Structure formats: C-alpha cells, structure tokens
C-alpha cells in the first residue's frame, strides 16, 4: 500500500510544478447546447465534488435556489425540502426533526447533509440535526441528489445527499440585515457582509443568524394530551459563518449552536418525566481549507483539509424525572464531545474527447465519545453537576475512489465508479456505481445502478443496552430517469426506482429496554413525477411521489405514506410585488404504535397550504408576510419514541423586514 501511495505523492508533486493555464473542459459547443436555465445553473468554478451539469450527473438532482428560498421565506431546512418530490417527515416539534427520503424512515442517518461539500451529520450517530440552525439567507442553492451516492461519499449517503452551498464573496461589496417576528414568540435576526476585489481576486464573506421560536401550542389537548398545559418548548439557534477567498484558495468556518427543550422527546402526561427546564445544547463547528488548480486542458486538482466538531455540550439537561413521595426526582446531565480531522485530494483527468476520469483519496481521524457521559442531581429542582469527559474512541478511515465516464457517442455516455472504505471501526466496504446517460436536444434519460451503506456508529453500538456485533447496513438501487424540456418554459420529468436495504440497523425493544440490531429488510418501489412551467409573470411547479415501502414479510413500513404531492406558484404582480402559494399533500400513513387518543395506528392524510406575500426592492428594503398552515389544519406526524403522535404547528404568521446595502 505504501509504495503506491508514494508513487501518487510523487506524481502529484510533479504535477504541482507544472504551469497553471487558464483553461477548462467547457467548450463553445457545450454552451450552445445549454438551455437558458442550464446557463443560469452553471458555476464559473464548481463547488461540487465533480464539476458537471445536472443533466450529465449519474443521479436525479433537484435544486432549491436562493431566489426560491427568499420568495417562499423558508425558515427551516425541512420547510425548503417539503416542496420537493420524494421527501416525508417526522417532525417532533422539538430538539430535532427527521427527514425521510425515498420511503426510508431513519434518524436522519440515511441522508448525508453537507455544507459547502463538508459533512455536517452529527459525528457520533451519523444522523444530521433538523431544525432552525441553518442560516438560509446565506444559502446560494441547495442541491438535492436522490439515491445512493456511497461510491463517492462513503457511509450515510444511502437515500441521498443534501448539499447546502453558501454564498461566495464574489460580486463586490454587499450585505443585508433582516428582522423577523411572528407567532409563538418567534424571532430572528440575520446579517451578511461581503466584499471582493476583482483585480486582486481576494474577498471575504461573513454571515450570522440568531433565531428563537416556541413553534406551536402543544399543551394539553392541543398537543394530543402528550404534555401538560404548562409544557415548555423552545428552540434558540445561533449560526455564524465566514469565508475568505484568496484567488483559488478558500478558507471557511461554519458554527452552529442549537439550544432547545427536550419536552417533546417524552410523553410526559402519565409518565415520570417533566416537560420543562430541560436543555439540549449541541454545537457544530466545521472548518476547511480548499484549493482548486487547473493544470491543463486535461487535468485539474482539488484539495481539501477539514475539521469537524459535533458536541452535545455538558450544560445539557436531557431529562428531568419528577419527584414523588418516595423519590426526590432527578435532573440528568449529558455530555458527548466528538471531533474529526480529514483530508481529501481529487484528480480530474480528461483523456481525449471520450474519457473523463476522477480519482480521489480521503484520510480521516476521528475522536468519538464511546457513549454519553451522564450525571444525576437526585433532585427535580437542582441542576446536575457537569458530566466528566467520557471514554473516547480513536478511529481511522482511509478511502479511495475512482469514477470513469466514457462518451460512447455525442449523445450517450457510460459512467462507472467504485469506492473502497477501510475503517478501523467498521472494517472494509466496497461500493460500486454505474450509469448510462442519454442526452439529445431536450431529452435526458438515465439508467442507474448504485450501492450504498450506512456504517454503525458509537450511538448504534451503545444505544439502550447496546450491541457490539453490528455490521453496516447496505442498499442496492436501480433507477431510471427521464426529463424532457418541451420549450424553454416547460419541463417535465420522472424517476422510477427500486431500492433494497439489507441488514437494517433496527431498534429492538427488549423488555423494558431497547438496543439496535442488524435485522430486517426494507424494499421500496417508488416513482416521482415533476413539472415546472413559466408563463409571463407566473411560475408554476408540481410534483407527485409514490412510495411502496415494505419489510421482509411484505408489511408496509410505518411512518411512510404511499402518496404525497406538492404544487405551488409564484406570481409577480409587478417588479416589486410577488405572491407565493404552496400546497403539500401528505397521504395517510401508519404510526409504529397504537395512538392512545384514537385507539388505532392511523395518521390521517392532510393538505397544508403555505404562502408568502413579498414587497421587494423599495429603496433596498424588502417586506414579507409569511403564513404557514393557512387553513389552520389539525394534522399529525408519527412518533417512534412513545405511543402517540406529534401535533404539527397551527397556523403561524411571521413578518420579515430586510434591508440590502
């Protein structure tokens, strides 16, 4: 192994001494084949792992643009995803929120969430945190890649990838500050500032956000009698990010601090748990240094060093047990630090007119808590002492991947790729992918095979009573995609897929306790249909998703609805006024356990309307009125935590004022 690595080192060293040239693989012919929308979506220098247009990527991709985020006034990441095909949710209206993609429920550990190409999934569990800690006003676009992508990204890229791409410093001096206020003590302030010197090719950007919300009224009967009338339910999020660009070198930092109550984690009515005074404080820190270099028409290099930290801070009070006549009660303190340092180097090589080869090596060292360190105060009213640092695990990962694209003809290309992960923790995993892509005029067709895996993490090994014998769960996937642009203003598409997950990491109830085991299969046959249309001042979209997910005994998977659909429009009344209205239909689905209030497991279907009225660009000022759940529908999400269901927020109003300078 060392010999070939030395060879690679020498080869890269030699390449580094070559002269930089201003060149790129994009040609005039490619530009002329692009539609106007393609051009709008083409970066000068791509921030993605592989520089490609969406139609050439061996996957289905949907994009949420900065314009859409603004005109729809999205407040959380889940809100932004809810208008796309293929997504369902378990929103526990609390310290986390769970996103299911393509019919597979999880603790957010089947989806890889990236910010500027760096993972922000929590290190100990592998699942990302949903909620309000993402500063969406700093987002240039969100790229959603459907289907497995472990052949490039490794573990957790099973159902898909969500890549949040933040705004770059380019474009000169600019900034904004905005204020938002709304129901349920919701407030937000955010700002951005950036400057760029084009002559020197140097710039910076800074952004920050503080957000606070109690989200909904869940006390007593309004919350399905899960919690008391006096329940406390808050979330306070702080987000800061900075980016410096010096020519092709970029250094960045993303910091998120999320503090929320844990009330909704338990059903407190009729249980020993108290639904106030808890605090779950988790913080994420990503830092990176990236460098891209084009050596010639054929070869480009991308290098990245990164540091990640995801820590449940020691001030967290995860649960409070009520005092009784015989027990003084207790507040339980939690602490779980985790950190990782890694490097990735990628080479793109274009060989002649027909071959594009991408190769990369990744090395990571991570320091993970073996499990939570906990302390108990032995009093309902007294805070616990700070937990000591837990036992730490020292894991190493080495991965390498290669992908080759061969243009069989002007219209047809074949992609094949493989990644080999060697972990000191979960062993070796090989994940291949292949795809056949047809692009002619306005038609794009893709046939894809992908494999993916989710490695067990300390959280899985130690959850509940623990299980040391876990192995990675694996997924095989076949997919066919079709997209056709009738005119510049009408495009339709369809994706049909079949996924098989084996050796699922499944929660098993063992008497009064629980643990994770490798058991069960999950198969999904699904399809997504979508259309986008623009007519003068009107932009329309609609999509429908069918998900038939079942286990090894042909039993339909709980928490997944077979039918979901979304539709919406934005109408520009004038250059200053825009109206946006969106509808989300959630079909009926089953709860894992019987719901005490109804005596059955059915979560009813629901049609939810959301909207936003925007007054834009009045001397730099924007005013927006946002209404979620306009019809004030009473609707629910499933619970995998306790026998019950989660009431979703009632109608909420929010007013936002933004000043651009």
């Amino acid at each position, binding site marked *: 192994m060392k010999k070939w690595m030395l060879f690679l080192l020498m080869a890269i060293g030699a390449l580094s001494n070559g002269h930089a040239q201003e060149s790129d693989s994009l040609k005039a012919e490619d530009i002329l084949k692009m539609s106007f929308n393609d051009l*709008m979506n083409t970066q000068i220098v791509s921030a993605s792992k592989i520089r490609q247009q969406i139609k050439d990527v061996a996957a289905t991709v949907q994009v949420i643009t900065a314009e859409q985020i603004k005109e729809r006034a999205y407040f959380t990441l889940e809100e932004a995803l809810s208008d796309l095909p293929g997504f369902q949710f378990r929103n526990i209206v609390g310290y986390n929120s769970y996103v299911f993609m393509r019919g597979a429920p999880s603790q957010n550990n089947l989806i890889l969430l990236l910010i500027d190409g760096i993972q922000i999934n929590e290190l100990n569990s592998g699942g990302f945190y949903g909620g309000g800690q993402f500063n969406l006003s700093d987002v240039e676009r969100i790229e959603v890649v459907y289907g497995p992508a472990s052949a490039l990204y490794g573990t957790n890229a099973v159902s898909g990838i969500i890549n949040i791409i933040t705004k770059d410093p380019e474009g000169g001096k600019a900034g904004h500050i905005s204020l938002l206020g709304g129901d349920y003590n919701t407030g937000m302030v955010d700002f951005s500032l950036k400057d760029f010197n084009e002559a020197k090719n140097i710039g910076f950007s800074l952004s920050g956000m503080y957000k606070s919300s109690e989200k909904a009224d869940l006390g007593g009967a309004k919350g399905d009698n899960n919690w008391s009338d006096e329940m406390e339910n808050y979330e306070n999020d702080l987000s800061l990010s900075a980016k410096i660009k010096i020519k*092709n070198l970029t250094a960045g930092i993303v910091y998120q601090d999320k503090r929320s109550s844990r009330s909704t984690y338990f059903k407190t009515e009729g249980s020993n748990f108290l639904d106030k005074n808890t605090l779950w404080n988790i913080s994420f820190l990503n830092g990176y240094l990236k460098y891209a270099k084009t050596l010639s028409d054929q070869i480009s290099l991308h290098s990245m060093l990164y540091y990640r930290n995801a820590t449940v801070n020691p001030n967290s009070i995860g649960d409070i047990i009520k005092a009784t006549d015989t027990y003084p009660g207790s507040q339980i303190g939690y602490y779980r630090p985790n950190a990782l340092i890694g490097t990735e180097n990628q080479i793109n090589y274009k060989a002649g007119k027909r071959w594009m080869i991408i190769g990369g090596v990744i090395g990571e060292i991570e320091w993970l808590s073996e499990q939570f360190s906990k302390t108990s105060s032995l009093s309902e009213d007294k805070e616990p002492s700070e937990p000591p640092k837990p036992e730490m695990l020292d894991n190493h990962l080495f991965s390498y991947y290669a992908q080759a694209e061969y243009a069989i003809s002007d219209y047809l290309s074949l992609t094949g790729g493989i990644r080999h992960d060697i972990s000191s923790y979960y062993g070796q995993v090989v994940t291949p992918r292949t795809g056949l892509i047809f692009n002619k005029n306005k038609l794009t067709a893709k046939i894809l095979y992908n494999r993916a895996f989710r490695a067990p993490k300390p959280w899985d090994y130690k959850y509940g009573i623990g299980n040391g014998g876990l192995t990675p769960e694996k997924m095989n996937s076949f997919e066919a995609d079709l997209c056709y642009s009738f005119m510049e203003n009408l495009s339709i598409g369809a994706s049909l897929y079949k996924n098989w997950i084996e050796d699922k990491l499944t929660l098993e109830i063992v008497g009064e306790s629980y643990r994770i085991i490798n058991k069960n299969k999950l198969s999904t046959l699904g399809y997504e249909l979508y259309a986008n249309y623009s007519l003068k001042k009107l932009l329309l979209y609609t999509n429908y998703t069918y998900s038939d997910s079942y286990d090894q005994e042909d039993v339909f998977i709980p928490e997944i609805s077979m039918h979901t659909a979304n539709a919406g429009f934005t109408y520009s009344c004038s250059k200053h006024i825009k109206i946006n209205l969106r509808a989300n239909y959630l079909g009926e689905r089953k709860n894992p356990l019987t719901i005490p209030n109804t005596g059955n497991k059915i979560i009813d279907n629901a049609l939810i309307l959301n909207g936003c009225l925007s007054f834009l660009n009045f001397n730099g000022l924007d005013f927006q009125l946002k209404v979620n759940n306009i019809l004030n529908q009473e609707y629910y999400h499933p619970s995998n935590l306790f026998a019950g269901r989660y009431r979703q927020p009632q109608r909420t109003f929010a007013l936002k004022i933004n000043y651009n300078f």
Partner: protein
Amino acid sequence: MRPNSLYSIQRIIFLIILSAGIIFPEIASAQSREYLLKAGYIEKFTHFIEWPEETTDKDSTFLIKVMGENKFGATLDEIFSKVTVKNKKVRIAYISTISDIKDCMILILSASVKSEQAEKILNYTTGKPILTISENKGYGEKGSMINMLVLDNYIRYEINPNALKKSGFVASSLLLNSATIVDTNE
C-alpha cells in the same frame, strides 16, 4: 466493535503530507470559463429580445461590437460563427472610440470601460436600436440595458427596462423573470 485494524496512523500522516504538497502552489484563474459563459449568455439574450422591426431588416449581417479591452478572447467569434441571429450571419468587431459604434445591433462594454466613458457611450446609444450589454457593477443604473455580474460564482444579470423601452426593444418575460430589475439613476 473494532473488526479491522488495516488502517494505521502512518497512512493518515501520509495523506496530510500529500495534501500539503499540493495546497500552496501557484494559482490558476477561471477567467476563460467566465467569458465563455458570458458569451453564451449574450447568444441566449438574442433569442429573448425583439429588435425594432426596421433595424433588423436593413442589413444582411448581424453586427456585434465590443468596446474596450477584449476579455472574451476568441469565444465570441467561436460561438457566433456556429449560429445565426434573426436569420443573419453574425460579425464581431472590436472598437475603441464612440464614432465606431454606429450600425451595430449589440454593443458590448468590456469591463475595462471606465465609468465616465461608459456614461458618454450610453448617452450616445440612448434611443438608438443598439442593445447595450455591460459587465461592471452600477452600469445598469447608468443606462446599460443588460449588465452581467459575477455573483456567488454564477453569472447573473441586471435589466434596465426603461433603457430597453427608450430604444424600442421588447424583452421576453422569461428574461425579465430571472433578472434583477434596475432603473436609470436620474
């Protein structure tokens, strides 16, 4: 729990050294890609803009002129040699004085055109059936009909509808929908 020990710390150190080896050498620019994309935008603009009828009828070629330093290299010639605009062959000319502007259908103000000179040029083209396209911040407000800017690594553009209207141009709503709308500073 630890089924494999194939990986060792030495390999990680190797990778870090390998990374450091390529992270600090000389830096390339993406200028050629930027101008290739800008040339692509200009070609697309011609599909979504209607010229006043009498102007497109009178000449046999569609003349595009570039004022100032030519940062496009050969990309404009390359792209427009493969297409026609309004059923006419396209000719590209590179000019340096206001007196050279006449007869063109599109005038591109290169990034090197200074603010004061741009104002004089835009005063000259106001009301004439010449589509003005610039690429400097603030030039949309000066009266340039389309102003292309690099924003967050993408090419974006401003449109000045009043400037278009004064010269008799009609822009498609598709073009307007994706633009930042600006008005001339009075």
